[in-house]
């Protein structure tokens, strides 16, 4: 458990050490639609670029109105925190991330870079073909850059490693379902976050160990109100920890850096790239791509039921427009189904007092500790 915390906190050091150890290349990517398997198969380490809290006095020069997430990634690049990155990849998602990608490249044009178009209409009949053809182009670009071909066996190996990771993470999440869970929300979230910046082979080993240890842990009886977290991606577990300090527990999340990251697996088929395309197009819809056939509300509701949550926290990053646009429908559905929720906006940092007040009041609302007359 602590290992995940450590790696997450020192993710830059981790990647640098990996580089030193293996002599390999590190690729940073912005959006969850980036097919990591291809990068991994080529022998490079895909690392998700996550934001961090650091005073930001550099990005105003080139950005305006961006969400703190994308802003901070640029800030870190300008400050040299990501000096170990050899290549940047953006798979189309949110435009603010595209902006961070493009601007970073304007500052550091020497980096290897590639843009993958991901269909906006993920359920469209021909979208999978478009995606696959984009992956063909992408694979070729990576091969040229790495100077060696990616074989089917490389891909198979990478798919296996990633699928194993996804299975293991599902196992961890399964443990959260228990009435008296052995793993807390913040711990599980830390694992997912760490897995996005780690070498998955190593991750899988640590994860197997951790799961074995969890089995021997004493179930917690003090976790209190069961909450679900929905909203913009985050890069820390401050919210989960705050919830836990207030006598409640986040038992499930529908967040792009959380459960959505590993929820579905690649279903193997001979056309590997098609298999990968289908996996990414079929992942739980992110708010932006959930446009024609609305799957997000149903998915949220299902998770809510499966995990017997008692209320939903919707936390949106300031200036996160995909989630902002989606809110009305989510609210509407939750209200129709009588699911209590509380919505708020967060910044990179959580203002402790204000958030505590919200959450405490929400928890009291769900489960009044006083029998008020």
């Amino acid at each position, binding site marked *: 458990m602590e290992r995940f915390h450590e790696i997450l906190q020192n993710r830059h050091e981790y990647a640098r050490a990996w580089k030193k150890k293996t002599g390999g290349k590190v690729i940073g990517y912005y959006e969850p639609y980036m097919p990591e398997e291809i990068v991994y198969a080529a022998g490079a380490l895909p690392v998700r670029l996550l934001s961090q809290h650091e005073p930001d006095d550099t990005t105003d020069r080139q950005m305006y109105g961006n969400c703190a997430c994308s802003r901070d990634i640029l800030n870190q690049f300008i400050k040299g925190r990501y000096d170990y990155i050899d290549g940047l990849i953006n798979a189309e998602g949110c435009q603010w991330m595209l902006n961070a990608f493009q601007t970073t490249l304007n500052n550091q044009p020497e980096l290897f870079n590639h843009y*993958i178009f991901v269909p906006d209409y993920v359920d469209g009949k021909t*979208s999978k073909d478009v995606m696959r053809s984009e992956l063909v182009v992408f694979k070729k670009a990576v091969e040229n850059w790495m100077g060696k071909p990616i074989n089917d066996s490389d891909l198979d190996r990478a798919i296996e490693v990633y699928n194993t990771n996804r299975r293991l993470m599902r196992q961890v999440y399964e443990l959260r379902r228990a009435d008296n869970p052995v793993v807390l929300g913040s711990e599980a979230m830390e694992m997912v976050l760490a897995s996005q910046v780690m070498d998955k082979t190593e991750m899988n080993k640590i994860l197997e160990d951790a799961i074995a240890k969890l089995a021997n842990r004493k179930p917690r009886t003090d976790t209190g109100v069961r909450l679900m977290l929905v909203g913009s991606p985050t890069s820390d577990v401050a919210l989960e920890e705050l919830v836990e300090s207030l006598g409640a527990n986040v038992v499930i999340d529908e967040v792009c850096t959380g459960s959505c990251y590993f929820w579905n697996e690649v279903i193997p088929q001979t056309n590997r790239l098609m298999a990968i395309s289908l996996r990414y197009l079929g992942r739980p819809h992110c708010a932006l791509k959930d446009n024609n056939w609305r799957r997000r509300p149903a998915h949220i509701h299902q998770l809510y039921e499966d995990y017997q949550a008692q209320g939903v926290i919707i936390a949106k990053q300031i200036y996160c427009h995909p989630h902002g*646009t989606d809110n009305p429908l989510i609210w509407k559905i939750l209200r129709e189904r009588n699911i209590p929720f509380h919505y708020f906006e967060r910044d990179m940092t959580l203002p402790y007092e204000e958030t505590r007040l919200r959450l405490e009041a929400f928890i009291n609302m769900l489960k009044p500790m006083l029998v008020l007359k």
Partner: protein
Amino acid sequence: MSKQKWETRPLEVWNKAKEMRAKWQKSIDTASSERVLLAQGNCQWSIGFPALRVIEDNPVGAMMANKSDEFARVSRLAGEIIGWGREICGYQLNCWGAMYLGHQIDGSPFPLRDLVIPFSDPCDQHTKRGQAPMDYSPIPRFQENYPLYTGPQDPNRDKTMIEDKVYTTLYIIAEIERIFGQKFDDERFVASVKVSGGITPYAQEVSRFMQHIPSPLSQKDLYSFYTLGGLTKGDPGETVAIWKALRDEVEWRVQNNIAAVGNERFRWMEAHPPPWHFLKYYRYMEKYGAVCIGSQYSHMMAGPMELKKDGTWGPRFSGGGFGRTIDRPIKTREDAIRVMLGTEARGHRFKDDEVIRPWALDDFAKAYKADGAILPLWRCGVGCTVTRKEQGLRLSEMGVRVLHYEGSQPGDRTDLDENRLFDQLDVWMESQGLRKLED
């Protein structure tokens, strides 16, 4: 103004244009009573359906902002209450806010939409357009992909993306025929594609005339016209005629040095729509002898233009697509769709430039001999502002003086501090040694 350098006079085609716009608006207003389908969105092929009107929330929102601060504000609040935040594009907030309120500015009932055909545009807000009416009352929605990629041109990628779009468009048309039982009129569609190709050369010429000093038109004039062919689907023949009339009149103005601003001594460009409720800053700038020669946006009807090697300002593409002259026969529905889409997947829309051709604004400044650029920074939505600051940096390096002002979004007056903008304009002008000609 005491003594003007150049003669000024109002545009004559203006009245005709107004008439056409009013006619279009009426056809929307009466849509429900005439049993015409009303679609949220925009697409050229809609003309093929005899009883289908497309209308986007963008022009509706802009019009609301322009007409009534108060109604727009109340509508936005209605949107906020159902869950939207302030990072959402103001057009959307205005338009759908009115839907939640249930009425329009004049108190008449809000015309509910029957289907959604989102407009193909790289702004993320467009990807999610039309979900408000869809969530409000279950109606069909037809999403397509808005392909875009960075890096060098790749014909193979283009081909796949275009094929996808052709397929989707054909599919959507068939679906609408099936669901609503309307027959698609291929001839009408083909004719319309031909006609819109007919506008392009005129629009391009008008665009080129704007290079003249003094500028024959100003930004405000351009705004009156660009909606004509693009956003409103009026009678095609009439539209071409009015563009021709416009071209002729502008040519005459150039020949006779008829100016938009009589004392032109400073030319500036823009990058996006202005705040629709606050067009008076154009007037204010005239006091300094400054004229706005337009933006990529207001020159949109001419299609993507570029600075050619010989220094002329010409169209970037040929062979079909928006703003492209047509050079091949169009017979079938699919032919027309292919011409409409062109052969390149990107570069189609002026906002693609933000990402794939960041130097586009530099070229624009050079072509129009701009001394300055006003680049608004909009807090809401994305497409409006993405890379705007970087463009500002590039222009400053070229020696073009850049002014950024902040606001929410062209259709949302919340954050636009009008007096601060006036102050900024004063500072901008004075710091370049220009003082008001006369108060």
